[in-house]
């Protein structure tokens, strides 16, 4: 599986497309936060982390859209099926490589907490670093879940554009459930369920610097279920 992870990383990092997507993510994420920093006037990263699920809606499908569709389109899936790799290893190898790519993109946002601390130094404010670290942990878990959802949906098509659109739609849906707008339209019982299922709400505890075991369980179990379904789908298709 290590060999497959290295190969997958090579596809993204030895390719202009990979660099463009990562840099666009970093530029957009940094800009969307920094444009309001002086207006808000607070030394806080919470707005930034709350913004990331919406940016992930485009970034994650962009990096996952080729992972399985390209293998099917070029028939290289046939090669993967005939070398000593199980379907689970194929999926996990691609998943881990994608999470690494997402983490590289997130690393490019680490300048923000540094900048905020420098900007806030003048007024005696500073970031509470453990809160920022826990928030990043939550974001990584969110991205991993988003990647697993997008990867599963891309398995049903040979077309990268369709894979991208399916992933974006699914992540949009996941971002929207549990928002106040949707909650106001549904009965109370449904509202409670949607709040529980909403990744953005689960991420909220991390953003506030709380390592909530229920949220960790939510992200890990959702990711595991989606990866399991992807593995089953690949085995069924062969």
């Amino acid at each position, binding site marked *: 599986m290590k060999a497959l992870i290295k190969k997958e990383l*090579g596809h993204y990092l030895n390719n202009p497309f990979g660099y463009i997507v990562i840099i666009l993510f970093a530029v957009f994420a940094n800009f969307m936060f920094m444009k309001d920093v002086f207006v808000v006037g607070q030394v806080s990263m919470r707005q930034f982390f709350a913004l990331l699920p919406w940016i992930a809606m485009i970034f994650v499908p962009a990096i996952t859209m080729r992972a399985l569709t390209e293998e099917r389109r070029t028939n290289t899936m046939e090669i993967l099926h005939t070398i000593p790799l199980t379907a689970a290893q194929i999926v996990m190898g691609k998943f881990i490589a994608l999470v690494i790519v997402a983490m590289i993109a997130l690393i490019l946002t680490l300048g923000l907490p540094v900048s905020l601390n420098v900007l806030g130094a003048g007024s005696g404010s500073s970031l509470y670093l453990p809160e920022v670290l826990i928030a990043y942990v939550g974001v990584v878990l969110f991205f991993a879940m988003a990647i697993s959802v997008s990867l599963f949906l891309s398995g049903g098509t040979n077309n990268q554009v369709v894979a991208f659109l399916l992933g974006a739609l699914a992540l949009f849906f996941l971002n929207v459930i549990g928002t106040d707008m949707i909650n106001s339209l549904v009965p109370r019982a449904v509202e409670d369920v949607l709040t529980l299922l909403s990744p953005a709400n689960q991420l909220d505890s991390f953003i506030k610097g709380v390592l909530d075991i229920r949220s960790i369980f939510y992200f890990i179990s959702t990711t595991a279920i989606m990866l399991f379904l992807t593995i089953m789908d690949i085995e069924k298709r062969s």
Partner: protein
Amino acid sequence: MINLINVTKKFGEKKAVDSLSIEIKTGEVIGFLGVNGAGKTTTMRMITGVLKPSLGTVSIDGVDPIDHHIATAKKIGYLPENNPLYPDMKVSEYLHFIREVKKHGSYLEIAEKVGLSDMLDTKIETLSRGYRQRVGLAAALLGDPHILILDEPTSGLDPIEQDRIRALITELAKEKVIVFSTHILSEVEDIATRIIIINRGKKVFDGPKPKGKGAVEKLFKTKVLENEIKKDS
């Protein structure tokens, strides 16, 4: 070694392979012949575990290639039809990847064997068809598999490249079980020890290679036509 017992493969209502039974033993070089759409590639995909039969059983050394995928994948080197490769990888990167998965052998030795030593730093997308075929063959040879399944290994190559690949297969045939499909009947005359002809998914001939120049072509045409007439009546 390779055993197919009453293997049928359906795609929807269409039978691509119909009640096929074949036994292939050590030391054999099988020329697998058939017109386009006869079921050769489907059969090869079932042998390698890419496809599951709808009916019947496939076994490699007594085990199902899908249920025991890892064990059988180590025994089989497969060159698929149209030779799918990763165009953005260099030859060395691709062979290194396959070698790391198969965990056996040296990709540099194999590259030298197939004549790729000078192309290791070249991106696959810039290679000619002949060299790409050599990359596919090198990948199939990595891990020193005992069985080689080669689906049209000389398809689309110029005559000189065809001769090179044929010479390589002839050399490999001394130590491996080889099943290769081809439309070039002279290849079968040169390399195979046994011929299997399938038509419309059914086996119409299975026996030793006939002797004499042009004998394979005559046999092929006779058997295929016989089967067509039988189907029509």
